[in-house]
């Protein structure tokens, strides 16, 4: 995996960018302040929507930033032609896994039996005594000492059934098998239009200033800015990107002001002025009273 080279691998699928490795996802968030959005099911609890799992979906601005900093590469997975060799290799892998699982399974059962040996012996004794009881009831004369006889058993005496091939453990892998797919570097062309360029400029500037930025559609803005990791801190700003010369209607101002007040965040109107400098204006609604 390219992670060994120190670069994050971003897969481009159908126009969207994904990261499939949890170590890389952590690195992006912890070291690089790139948050992204998890959009898959979590393996250990798949039927809920609060905690999602990999893949991590990245915003196009985040991808451009990583590429500019030389910290990632965008690839597309191309399928190799499947040869008989590959099929054979997979079958071998499966067989090997099965053999190893049989060993592990047997070993585990042995450990379990060793731990529970006294209970097994007690159980066997009780069973034998029951049988003797029955025989006594039928008229046979049995000595009391028969009941007290100990049963000698060792771990090997208990039979362990072999693990069936059908019961062997298999997995649905998350990422593509590197032996059957070849990642191909892809040209990344974001940002293109004026709006996109503006968005990226704002994103980059805020990121440089140390903020954590995520998609702002939940709050009706372009980005949401956190002072620290989103897991630990509330966000402070809703960033709205507007072209410098654009006019804002009264209703729009009221909408933004009201929204910000209700969610206890400051609306930051961001734009790039004539001197190519970024300027930010924060909006606060003071109310009527």
């Amino acid at each position: 995996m390219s992670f060994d080279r120190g670069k994050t691998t971003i897969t481009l699928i159908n126009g969207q960018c994904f990261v499939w490795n949890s170590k890389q996802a952590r690195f992006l968030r912890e070291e690089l302040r790139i948050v992204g959005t998890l959009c898959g099911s979590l393996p250990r609890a798949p039927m809920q929507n609060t905690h999602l799992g990999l893949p991590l979906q990245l915003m196009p601005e985040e991808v451009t930033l990583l590429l500019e900093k030389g910290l990632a590469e965008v690839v597309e997975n191309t399928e190799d032609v499947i040869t008989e060799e590959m099929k054979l290799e997979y079958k071998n892998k499966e067989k090997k896994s099965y053999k190893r699982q049989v060993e592990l399974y047997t070993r585990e059962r042995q450990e379990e039996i060793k731990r529970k040996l006294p209970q097994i012996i007690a159980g066997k004794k009780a069973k034998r005594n029951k049988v003797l009881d029955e025989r006594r009831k039928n008229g046979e004369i049995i000595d009391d000492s028969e009941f007290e006889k100990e049963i000698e058993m060792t771990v090997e005496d208990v039979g362990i059934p072999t693990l069936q091939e059908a019961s062997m453990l298999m997995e649905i892998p998350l990422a593509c098998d590197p032996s059957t797919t070849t990642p191909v570097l892809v040209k990344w062309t974001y940002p293109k239009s004026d709006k996109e360029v503006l968005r990226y400029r704002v994103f980059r500037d805020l990121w440089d200033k140390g903020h954590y930025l995520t998609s702002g559609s939940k709050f009706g803005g372009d980005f949401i800015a956190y002072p620290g990791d989103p897991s630990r801190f509330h966000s402070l700003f809703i960033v709205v990107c507007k072209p410098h010369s654009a006019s804002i209607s009264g209703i729009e101002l009221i909408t933004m002001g009201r929204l910000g007040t209700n969610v206890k965040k400051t609306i930051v109107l961001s734009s790039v002025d004539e001197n190519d400098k970024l300027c930010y204006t924060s909006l606060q609604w003071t109310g009527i009273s």
Partner: protein
Amino acid sequence: MHSADELFRVRQGLEKSVPQKGGVKDFMPDGSWIQGKQIEKFHEEREKVLAEPRVQKKCDYVHGLWTNESRLVEIEHEGKSFWKNMGFTRNGRKFLHPEEALFLMEMNVLQVWYNFLPMSIEGAYCRFLGPTLTLEFHQVYAHLRRMGYVVIRHRGKLASRYEREIGLDKYQKKKERQLGDPMTSSLLTKKNSIEELAQMEGLENCVTDKMCEHEKVAGEEIVASENSQIKMDCAASIEKAHSQETEIGGNEEMGSSLILQSHMNSIKDSAECLNDNVTSLSPVDDNILTTFKHSDATNSAFSSESRNASGFQYKSSAWDFRKIAFPNFGAECGDVIKIQRSESNLTPGHVVCELDCYDFNRMAHINKKKDKKKDLERDRKLKFSNNNSRFSSYQNSRNWSEYKVCLYNWRSNNWRQDQFPHLFADGLQPLVRPELATSTEAILQQLQVIKSSTKPPRNSKADPPAVLPHFDVYSPNKKFKKTNPGTPDFRVIVMRLIQTRCDESPPDLKTISDIDVYFDDDVPLHCAVVDAGTVMFNTLSFFTLPTEVSLG
């Protein structure tokens, strides 16, 4: 791929706990050690949880095969859990849609194979996502499924309002079922249209075949439906009689006389049917009068529209309701309504209409139930209201409309227009005019500055809207049947939010009202907005604001 050891270890200590989300958050980073430690711990746990593999016993996995051409996953043996709500059968084979397959893979239930090798989830994303399945579509699907809903790709309008009212939607006809089938709706419409063209050219064989088929279907329906006996027979018998008159001689195969007899038996009701169920006959339309196509040119009531733009096949009606003049029983033209005999004989075969014109006396049929005590009480209260001058007008009128007219006349005559000249002199005038302030409701109406748009009337014959919903969603239900799901609990349109582009916008009022008019049921429409992995649901529905009106 993980080694066997790792798989084993995972299987042993299978933890079901979900990592904690949220909790108490801080406001500003204060650089403290404890904060840093908490964040570090969070990341460690997160990495561990995200890296867990999906492990299952080989026998517990459902085996699926992906084919690029059909873009579907085929399975041989369905699992215990999901087949009730997902997938479909075609030609005896079981298939799953790509979004369903991807969801099941993430649930660790299905293993998809392609080229004799198992597919990873990333591989599935690469292969399944494409023009037929966008990422947003899948994300909305997965979101709803994870919440527990049963989500199906939209199947179109399955039953009209009338069919639902008479309970006919429980018995979906085979052809409609096929149409509703997600696989055929796209693959077979072309084939069907060619068939239809051939029929419409008036091949007699077709007509006779279709008539037989219709009888069979009609027979089934009569057997099947309980409450709709009379109405169904009515409709079918009218048709039968009609066909009898026009297709003279051509059809010895008018079919089993048995069915015809049963129609004839209920023909006594049919005259009443016509009169009583005037309005209900109009929705007895495309769906019930099935593939019965007249090739007869003399039949002026032939409806030509049988297909629409989206390719859904509707059975054409043998009746053109634009040309049939139904008498208007609600007309306010006195007590007696004259009914003319129509040129096209719509009465069943052996019923002969001798009169050219029939006088229908409405008064004879009017509801003569006595007034309820409540209404009498209300009238009494009004009688003794303050305004004495109204007393005379009250005494002179026979009903409320007359009284209101009386009152209005009295007011406009007695009111002095020059009472508030200073108010009404300028351009800026009050909204309420004193002479029109007859009641609270009237005042409120005059004060209404923002005009509420009226919801368009529902029309079951409307064309399908340009934008159709993407999903039909049902609450989890033990009685859910894939082949006959019934009316969904809500429908979802998926919309991608790209803030830098304006090409995709939420459905506008016209689209929403078109959809509301077309489906003609109270199923809410949700708009799922997807932006960079987050899904948000919005509902756009019609409702009328209540106006508080008190007596006065």
